[in-house]
C-alpha cells in the first residue's frame, strides 16, 4: 500500500489508486471534467494537472497511479497557472450563454472558473458556431457549442448503457459530440448522461426552463419504480412557491450514489416516474352517500369505516373483514397493518400481492420486473396469500368489508370480483378505478411526503425521508391505520420512527446513512 504526500498531508492508499482518488480520500477535490469514477479514463480535459516531485512535467491526476513516497502538489503556482490556461482553452469556443443555460448554478465551468478563471478575456477571434439546443432523444437536449468534449456521455453509452448512440465526430475546433445518424438516444438509461455532463451541453427536456437549480431543495429518497431500490434525491421546489411551476412540487429526480445498488445511475423510468406525486392525487377523504362519492372530513369517514368493520366483525367474526395491503407500502405501514389486522383483530383474510399485476421490463443492470419497491418487505413481514382469494370471498359475500391499500383491482377478472364486494374501503394516493368504485376513500401520502423504509429485493432495508407535506388533506398511512385502530378500540403508534424502533431496536436516524444500504445478511446495519 503506497503512502504519498498530497499538499503536505500523508495518505496511505490501496495499490492501483490514482492520485485524484487519493486526494479525494483526504478531502482534496482536484478540478476535473472528463474523469468520472464510473467510467473509463480518458485524459481529455487536462483540468486535473498536478505537480509531482521528480516528474519534469505536470501530470494528470486521474491517470497517474499513486506511488510510495510521491510528493504531490495540487495548489502550486505551476498547477494553478495550468488550470487557468486549460479553462481559457475550454472557454475559447464556449458561448457563455449562462443566463439562458439550464446548467447554470450547477455547472463545473462556472464553478471552476470562480476559482481559477482568468476573468480578463484575451480572446479576439470568432467563436466556432455549432448546432444548438436540439433533441437527441426522448429526454435529452444537446447544445454542441456548450460542449467541452470531455466524452463522459460517449463513454457512458459505450460502457454503461452499451448502446453506442453517441460519438465524437470531426476534428480539432470543429469536433462535435453527436448522435450516429439514424440513431436516437432512447436507451432505458439515457437520462444519466444529463447528470454526468459537467456543463450545459446535455440538459433534461422535462426540466429545461422549469426552475433555476438554486431554488431547488433536495431530499434523500428511494426510487419506488421497482424492487431494486435505487437511491435517489428528490429535487423539489424549496424556496419557491409551487404555483410558479404549475403546481409541481417535485421537479426532478437525480440518482444518489450507492456502491452496492445503483452506483451513480438510475433508469429513465425511475427518473421520470415522479409525476404521480403531484398529479391525480386523492386530496380529501371521500364517502359514498347515495350513489356519488363526496368529500368528507377525516373523522366521519374513519367513523364510518370503524362502524362497518365492527358490524361485520360482530356478525361474521374474523372472517367478516378482508384486507389487501400492498408492496407499495413502507415496512412501518406494513407493520402497523400487521399489528392491527393480524395480531389484534386476528383477521383471517389478509393478503398483499396482486396476482394480476403485469410485470415491468427487466434487464441485467438495474431494472427489475417487479414494479413494487417493497415486495421483499411484504414477504419478510409474514404476509402471504394473494388478493385473488380475498376478492373471491368478498364477491361471494363471505367478507362484508374489504379494505384495499394502493392496488388497482378494478380491471379484468379482479374487476368482476370487486364489483360484487359489499363495502370497499380504498386507502391510496392517486385516483384509479378502484378508488372510484369504493364506498370510503382515504387519501394516503406518497413516499415523498413521509418517512419510512423499503426492503429491496436483496433484503436491504433502506430509508426514505420526507421531502414534502402530504398533499391536501392526505395523511401518511401509519397515521391512518393508527386512527382507524383508535376508533376500533386499539392503540397503535402513528409515527414511522416509533414503529421502526420497536421493530429493529434502533431509530431511523441510526439506520446507516440515510436511505443507504444495509447488509442483507444482518438486515440492519447500525
Amino acid at each position, binding site marked *: 500500500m503506497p503512502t504519498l504526500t498530497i499538499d503536505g498531508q500523508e495518505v496511505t492508499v490501496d495499490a492501483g489508486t490514482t492520485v485524484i482518488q487519493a486526494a479525494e480520500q483526504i478531502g482534496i477535490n482536484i478540478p476535473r471534467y472528463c474523469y468520472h469514477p464510473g467510467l473509463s479514463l480518458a485524459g481529455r480535459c487536462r483540468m486535473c494537472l498536478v505537480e509531482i516531485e521528480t516528474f519534469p512535467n505536470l501530470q494528470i491526476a486521474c491517470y497517474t497511479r499513486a506511488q510510495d513516497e510521491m510528493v504531490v502538489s495540487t495548489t502550486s503556482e505551476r498547477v494553478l497557472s495550468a488550470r487557468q490556461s486549460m479553462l481559457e482553452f475550454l472557454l475559447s469556443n464556449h458561448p457563455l450563454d449562462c443566463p439562458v443555460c439550464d446548467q447554470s448554478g450547477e455547472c463545473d465551468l462556472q464553478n471552476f472558473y470562480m476559482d481559477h478563471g482568468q476573468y480578463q478575456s484575451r480572446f479576439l477571434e470568432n467563436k466556432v458556431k455549432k448546432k444548438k439546443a436540439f433533441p437527441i432523444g426522448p429526454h435529452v437536449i444537446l447544445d454542441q457549442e456548450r460542449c467541452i468534449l470531455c466524452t463522459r456521455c460517449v463513454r457512458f453509452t*459505450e460502457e454503461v448503457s452499451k448502446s*453506442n448512440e453517441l*460519438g465524437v*465526430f*470531426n*476534428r*480539432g475546433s470543429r469536433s462535435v459530440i453527436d448522435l450516429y*445518424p*439514424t*440513431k436516437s438516444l432512447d436507451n432505458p438509461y439515457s437520462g444519466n448522461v444529463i447528470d454526468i455532463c459537467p456543463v450545459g451541453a446535455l440538459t433534461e427536456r422535462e426540466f429545461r426552463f422549469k426552475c433555476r437549480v438554486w431554488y431547488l431543495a433536495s431530499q434523500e429518497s428511494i426510487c419506488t419504480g421497482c424492487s431494486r431500490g435505487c437511491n435517489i434525491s428528490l429535487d423539489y421546489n424549496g424556496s419557491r412557491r409551487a404555483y410558479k411551476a404549475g403546481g409541481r412540487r417535485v421537479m426532478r429526480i437525480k440518482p444518489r450514489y450507492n456502491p452496492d445498488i445503483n452506483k451513480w445511475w438510475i433508469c429513465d423510468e425511475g427518473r421520470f416516474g415522479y409525476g404521480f406525486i403531484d398529479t391525480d392525487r386523492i386530496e380529501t377523504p371521500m364517502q359514498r352517500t347515495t350513489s356519488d362519492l363526496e368529500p368528507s372530513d377525516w373523522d366521519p369517514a374513519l367513523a364510518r369505516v370503524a362502524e362497518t368493520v365492527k358490524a361485520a366483525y360482530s356478525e361474521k367474526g374474523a372472517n367478516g373483514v378482508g384486507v389487501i395491503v400492498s408492496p407499495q407500502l413502507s415496512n412501518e405501514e406494513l407493520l402497523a397493518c400487521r399489528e392491527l389486522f393480524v395480531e389484534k383483530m386476528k383477521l383471517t383474510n389478509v393478503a398483499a400481492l396482486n396476482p394480476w399485476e403485469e410485470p415491468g421490463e427487466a434487464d441485467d443492470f438495474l431494472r427489475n420486473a417487479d414494479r413494487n419497491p417493497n415486495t421483499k418487505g411484504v414477504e419478510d413481514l409474514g404476509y402471504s396469500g394473494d388478493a385473488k382469494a380475498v376478492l373471491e370471498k368478498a364477491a361471494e359475500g363471505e367478507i362484508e368489508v374489504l379494505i384495499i391499500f394502493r392496488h388497482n383491482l378494478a380491471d379484468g377478472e379482479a374487476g368482476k370480483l370487486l364489483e360484487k364486494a359489499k363495502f370497499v374501503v380504498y386507502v391510496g394516493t392517486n385516483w384509479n378505478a378502484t378508488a372510484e368504485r369504493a364506498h370510503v376513500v382515504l387519501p394516503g401520502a406518497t413516499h415523498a411526503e413521509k418517512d419510512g423504509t423499503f426492503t429491496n429485493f436483496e433484503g436491504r432495508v433502506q430509508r426514505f425521508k420526507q421531502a414534502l407535506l402530504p398533499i391536501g388533506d392526505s395523511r401518511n398511512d401509519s397515521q391512518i391505520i393508527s386512527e382507524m385502530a383508535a376508533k376500533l378500540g386499539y392503540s397503535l403508534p402513528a409515527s414511522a420512527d416509533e414503529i421502526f424502533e420497536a421493530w429493529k431496536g434502533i431509530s431511523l436516524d441510526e439506520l446507516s446513512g440515510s436511505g443507504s444500504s444495509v447488509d442483507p445478511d444482518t438486515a440492519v446495519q447500525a
Partner: protein
Amino acid sequence: MSASFEFTPENKKRFEEILRRYPTKRAAMLPSLHLTQEQEGYISPEAEQYIADLLEVPVVDVREVVSFYTMFTRNPLGKHHIRVCESLSCWVRGSDEVKETLEKELGVESGGITEDGEYSWEVIPDCLGACELAPMLQLDGYFEGNLTREKVVELLKKQAASKTSGK
C-alpha cells in the same frame, strides 16, 4: 451510389490480408476504410455499417474515424477530385486565389461536383503536408504547387486535354 455495400471478391481477399497484420480487428480500421474508399470512391453510411460489422465494432466508432481524417470522404466525388490546402503556409502564399479560380473555372463551390460529373473540389483546412509548394492542391492525389491563377487555369486545361487525347 449504392444502397448496400460489399467488398468485391478481390477486395475481400485483400481485407483478409489486412486483418492478418493486426493483433485486433479494430486495429484494421484505417486500411479497411482506405480499401472501401478505393473501391467505392467514398464511404457511404452503408459502407460504414459493413466495416463495423466486419471489424465487430459499433458503427459510431467507424463514423468517428471517417469524420476525423480529411482523406476520407462521405460524399460521392467527381471523376477527378481536387483538394486545396488552406493551412497556414498556403493561406499566406495565396490559397484564397486558388479557391476563387477553381470556383470560377468549375462553376461550383467547394464541396460540389460539376454538372458533367467530371470534377469535384474541396477546401482542406488541415495541412496537406507540402508547405514547400505553397500554395498547393492535390489533383487525384498528385501534388501541384507554387500555384497562381494562371497555373490553376492551365492545370485544368491540361487535364481536359489529356482526357480528350485518351490518355
